[in-house]
């Protein structure tokens, strides 16, 4: 009973302090009504063990962009919901006590169109030395670029299986983007990158983008 009371007491003490901290961060950066609403959302998120920093950042971003209050609050609330969904998915992937950035990466993935199942699968695939937060963020970016979710997961998992470095993983969206800029669809670009790069889809084997020298092949050695 005593440990339970101690936890309750600690929460009662910590939550107002956290709300105060959130409020101080938002002071002067968002209107007072937005500040109060975000404080409440953040306090609720913290009570559920969710990270509050992404909520503060989103509110600050909305304030800087002079987004109308209602829309800003709705966006922060939607982000809180995604964080909750991501936390659940990350737990499902086997991470019992994930770091805040892992949950944030999962929320980015959900926002980009990945499902909770995809997030769980990517967390399971992110064994050491791969950082699940980085893996989730890369997958989220690929999905945001238009790569179909299932193909996104396969591409990232393939990179991990091939033992590519974290830096290679982080550069993966750039590779896809380069092919998209060359005229490929995101799915074609992902397929191309997954098979080691080379000539972009739909181009002759010796094709070189205008104004460029021939690029070195990337992907699988």
């Amino acid at each position: 009973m005593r440990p339970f009371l101690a936890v309750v007491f600690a929460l009662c003490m910590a939550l107002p302090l956290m709300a105060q901290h959130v409020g101080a961060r938002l002071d002067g950066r968002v209107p007072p009504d937005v500040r109060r609403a975000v404080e409440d959302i953040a306090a609720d998120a913290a009570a559920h063990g969710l990270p509050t920093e992404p909520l503060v950042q989103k509110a600050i971003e909305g304030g800087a962009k002079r987004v109308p209050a209602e829309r800003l609050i709705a966006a922060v609330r939607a982000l809180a919901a995604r964080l909750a969904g991501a936390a659940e998915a990350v737990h499902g992937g086997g991470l019992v006590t994930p770091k805040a950035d892992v949950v944030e990466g999962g929320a980015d993935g959900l926002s980009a169109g990945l499902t909770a199942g995809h997030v769980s699968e990517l967390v399971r695939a992110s064994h050491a030395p791969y950082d699940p937060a980085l893996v989730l963020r890369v997958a989220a970016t690929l999905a945001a670029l238009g790569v179909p979710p299932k193909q996104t997961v396969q591409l990232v998992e393939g990179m991990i299986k091939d033992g590519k470095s974290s830096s290679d993983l982080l550069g993966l969206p750039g590779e896809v983007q380069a092919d998209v800029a060359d005229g490929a669809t995101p799915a074609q670009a992902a397929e191309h990158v997954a098979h080691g790069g080379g000539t972009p889809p739909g181009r002759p084997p010796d094709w070189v983008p205008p104004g460029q020298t021939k690029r070195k092949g990337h992907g699988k050695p």
Partner: protein
Amino acid sequence: MSLGYHPLVKQLLDGEVSLAQLPPELRAEGAEALRLIGAVDRSPVVLSAALDDRVMAVVRRHAASRPRRAWHWLTAPRDVELRLRLRPAVWAGALAVAAAVALLLLGRAPGSAPVPASVVRSGARDSVFVRFVLYAPGARQVAVAGTFNQWDLSAAPLARAGTSGVWTTTLALPVGQHQYAFIVDGERWVADPAAPAIDDGFGRRNSMVAVTTRGARTL
């Protein structure tokens, strides 16, 4: 009030010349000046004996206390002259020893491994210099804001590169993914046309950049 005496009359008052030595036309003025000076009461002033005590009492009351004087003694700057008398062989040897110790310490410092030129150490995390470029020929001012600077509109202004309409700035960003956008003329948010963009949750688009220890890439 001051009287404008002739310089020779002033010499007379100073005792440098006598009345007889003055030119005849100045003698009347000299005599008048002597008469006025002579009328001044030159009897010695006698001060009350208690005045000294009263003055000193006030001075002591305003004098700094002992601790205050001690603090002032400790903190007041002083000129210190340090003279060293060494043989050249001695100070050259001392310099060599100091240089050797410094090199030894630098060699043992953690994280002193060579790093690429574009990578700078920033606390526990690496940072990479990233160049942001926007073509905005009609703009009066351009800035870049993002997750790396708390979306601060004034934190990272771009500079105009000549008259070509190109605006540019270079920032040290920590390794990782970052979202950003350009702000043109302080109010118009513009996604980077050279980088992919994602929905920002407010109905606009944020550009993305990935920073690795090998450099930065737009995602």
